[in-house]
């Protein structure tokens, strides 16, 4: 029953989002607002209807059969809804409807004509995706031969961190749909000014914040689950989340220029449209199977074609509108290259170049294949040589930019504090390796903190947190990439050795027995703390497992693995492998700062608009 109610609500939401599109674009304000709220309500109802089927393990619903199991813990029954293509699409649409409702009620969006147009466009986007869901991947379908039990959730997704990683990312991806609608709406209305900039800022803040958090959660999961060491693999789907993040970051900076100087109008609109287009591109890549990736959903060519059609319709439509209406947007005020605006333009150029580089790398194998040339894959070396190199000048500029005054830098008063920061950073990083990389990261942190000496407002705190966090994260990235220490040696009882800053004492190996296994258990003292790496043997299944002992500290993560017995070196000699990953916690702390800066931005963009 709940499933049918959900299904019906979902179908009704399609009709109402078409109404929302028509009423919004035609300027029937009240109708559009009510339709926006109704679409959101109906989508939530649809989601809850399906959730009831998941929670009660209703195995007459195909999606529940495929992705759930009666014995699964309740929390995974709930999260199982979006651990698959159909259900996650429903969640995606709920968020789309949520942002539609947010446009309808956002109190300080004062330009009612813009609000109507944006609701209209958001309604049309919702209509497109609800049709996609109903036609190609309906999660409410039932079967006439229900089985006794389900096929379980894809076990990779039976992890709490991973259960909340996709929804967070979706909130980011989909959040940019509101920005897109407001940008296209502004083109239709023909007004792009500082009021528009302040109006879309909360939307950009929510989307950017969620996207940053989603990417960070994905990285953390990859680091702890995919075998210790990497947290970013330049996988096409990871890149798909990085692309809107890069242009979204560029967007939130160019908004600052638009807000205070009414410059960069066309550019800001372009970024706003491009960011959601890249989100759609990501959705297409994940769900169409044109690129093979560990993240890809099961493949159905019809789905790919359908999403491509939607992508062509919305992005093509918005960019056509841009080509037509953007030339009418004129910027009068000028600024000199050495100014806050100049710094932000440089930041934008680098970020967009990075995005273009990542996009090229991601699509290059496809392009080569389409032209009938070699089948190749683009991996980390390409990105390290390009994107990482571009990060160096970006980080240097990020330290300088906030010191520059708006319009033009008079008398070069900004040079003195910057020079002091540079000296401090040099002193800290002196003799580190790689000097340039560390210097740039420390420089960014020092100069960001220096911004706090004058005025502490939510706005400046947001900027400092973001910049400082990125510097912190950069240290962590270098730590995990360059300073990993690995030590493999043959040890005998009471051997003491050092790996990096840690002293290890090998006490010996003892035989221990578990309920159904026997194990060699080493006793290793790591800086005075006793660790027990094991090597287990399961006689029934004739298999062995290695249980690493892990110690997490603030400065580094250490893990110790017991290897084979080395009979040549003596009766009690064993191979012991120790790996130290420095500054991993720094990486997560940096990401946390970036997310917090997004929260601060959301706070001040909402508060700032209370005052007229």
């Amino acid at each position, binding site marked *: 029953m709940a499933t049918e109610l959900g299904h019906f609500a979902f179908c009704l939401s399609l009709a109402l989002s078409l109404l929302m599109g028509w009423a919004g674009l035609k300027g029937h304000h009240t109708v559009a607002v009510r339709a926006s709220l109704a679409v959101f309500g109906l989508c939530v109802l649809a989601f809850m209807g399906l959730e009831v089927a998941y929670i009660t393990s209703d195995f007459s619903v195909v999606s529940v059969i495929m992705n759930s*199991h009666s014995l699964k813990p309740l929390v995974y029954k709930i999260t199982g809804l979006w651990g698959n293509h159909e259900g996650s699409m429903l969640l995606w649409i709920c968020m789309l409807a949520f942002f539609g409702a947010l446009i309808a009620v956002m109190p300080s969006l004062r330009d009612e004509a813009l609000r109507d147009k944006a609701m209209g466009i958001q309604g049309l986007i919702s209509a497109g995706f609800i049709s996609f869901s109903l036609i190609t991947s309906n999660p409410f379908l039932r079967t006439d031969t229900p089985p006794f039990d389900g096929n379980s959730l894809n076990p990779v997704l039976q992890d709490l961190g991973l259960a909340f990683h996709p929804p967070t990312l979706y909130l980011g991806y989909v959040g940019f749909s509101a920005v897109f609608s407001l940008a296209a709406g502004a083109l239709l209305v023909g007004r792009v000014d500082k009021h528009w900039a302040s109006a879309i800022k909360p939307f950009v803040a929510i989307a950017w914040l969620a996207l940053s958090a989603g990417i960070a959660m994905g990285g953390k999961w990859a680091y702890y689950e995919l075998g210790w060491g990497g947290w970013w693999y330049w996988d096409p789907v990871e890149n798909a989340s990085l692309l809107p993040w890069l242009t979204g970051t560029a967007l939130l900076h160019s908004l600052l220029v638009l807000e205070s100087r009414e410059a960069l109008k066309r550019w800001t609109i372009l970024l706003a449209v491009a960011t959601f287009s890249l989100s759609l591109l990501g959705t297409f890549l994940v769900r169409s199977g044109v690129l093979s990736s560990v993240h890809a959903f099961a493949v159905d060519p019809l789905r790919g074609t359908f999403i491509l059609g939607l992508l062509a319709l919305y992005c093509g439509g918005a960019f056509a509108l841009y080509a037509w209406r953007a030339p009418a947007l004129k910027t009068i005020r000028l600024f000199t290259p050495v100014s806050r605006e100049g710094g932000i333009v440089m930041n934008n150029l680098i970020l967009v170049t990075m995005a273009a580089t990542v996009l090229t790398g991601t699509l290059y194998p496809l392009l080569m294949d389409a032209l009938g040339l070699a089948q190749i894959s683009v991996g980390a070396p390409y990105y390290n040589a390009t994107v990482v190199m571009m990060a160096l000048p970006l980080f240097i500029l990020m330290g300088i930019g906030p010191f520059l005054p708006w319009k033009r830098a008079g008398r070069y008063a900004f040079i003195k504090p910057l020079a002091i920061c540079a000296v401090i950073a040099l002193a800290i990083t002196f003799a580190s390796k790689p000097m340039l990389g560390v210097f740039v990261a420390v420089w960014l942190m020092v100069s960001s903190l220096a911004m706090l000496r004058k005025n502490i407002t939510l706005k400046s705190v947001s900027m400092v947190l973001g910049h400082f966090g990125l510097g912190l994260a950069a240290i962590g990235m270098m730590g995990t990439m360059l300073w990993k220490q690995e030590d493999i040696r043959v040890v005998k009882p009471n051997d003491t050795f050092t790996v990096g800053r840690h002293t290890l004492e090998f006490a010996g190996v003892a035989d221990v027995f578990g309920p159904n296994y026997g194990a060699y258990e080493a006793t290793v003292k790591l800086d005075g703390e006793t660790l027990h790496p094991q090597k287990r043997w399961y006689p029934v299944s004739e298999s062995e497992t290695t249980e690493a002992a892990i110690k997490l500290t603030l400065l580094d993560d250490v893990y110790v693995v017991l290897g084979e017995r080395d009979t040549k070196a003596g009766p009690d000699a064993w191979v012991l492998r120790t790996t130290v990953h420095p500054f991993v916690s720094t990486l997560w702390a940096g990401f946390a700062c970036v997310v917090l800066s997004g929260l601060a931005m959301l706070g001040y963009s909402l508060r700032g608009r209370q005052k007229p």
Partner: protein
Amino acid sequence: MKRIPLTIIPLVAVLLLVALFMGRLADPRMAGAIDSPLIGKPAPALGANIKPPYVINFFASWCTPCAIEHPFLMKMKAQGVQIIGIAYKDTPEKITEYLARGGNPYTKIVYDDKGDEGITFGITGVPESFAVDSTGIIRTRLQGPFADEIAVKDFLEAMP
């Protein structure tokens, strides 16, 4: 003639991209379900020290379809097929209990408690099986359980 504004560039870029993807989707290789990118490539090392040919079978004690296909695996074993079992997100205790019920068809069991091997092989769930030929190359993959004798025969024929 009126000059075409530069603002048309993004539109052109989007249309070119869409054309590229349309070409890709229309590609006959996309028509059949995209199979594992591992097919035709050497099987990832499992540290099992078993000479190919063999079957790699992802399974778990908590998985109902695995119990359904279990008798077919036992028959394969009786035919002399080597099967490496990858115990996916499971514990040795539970696996031992599970195999005590239906017998052990596996030549060797690899424990994949974190799901790393699942990522390496790009599996979509359990059970899932890969056929590795005598040169160590993955020949085919089966998503889901062996449903009947014909499925087993088809699968094994792919691995000469």
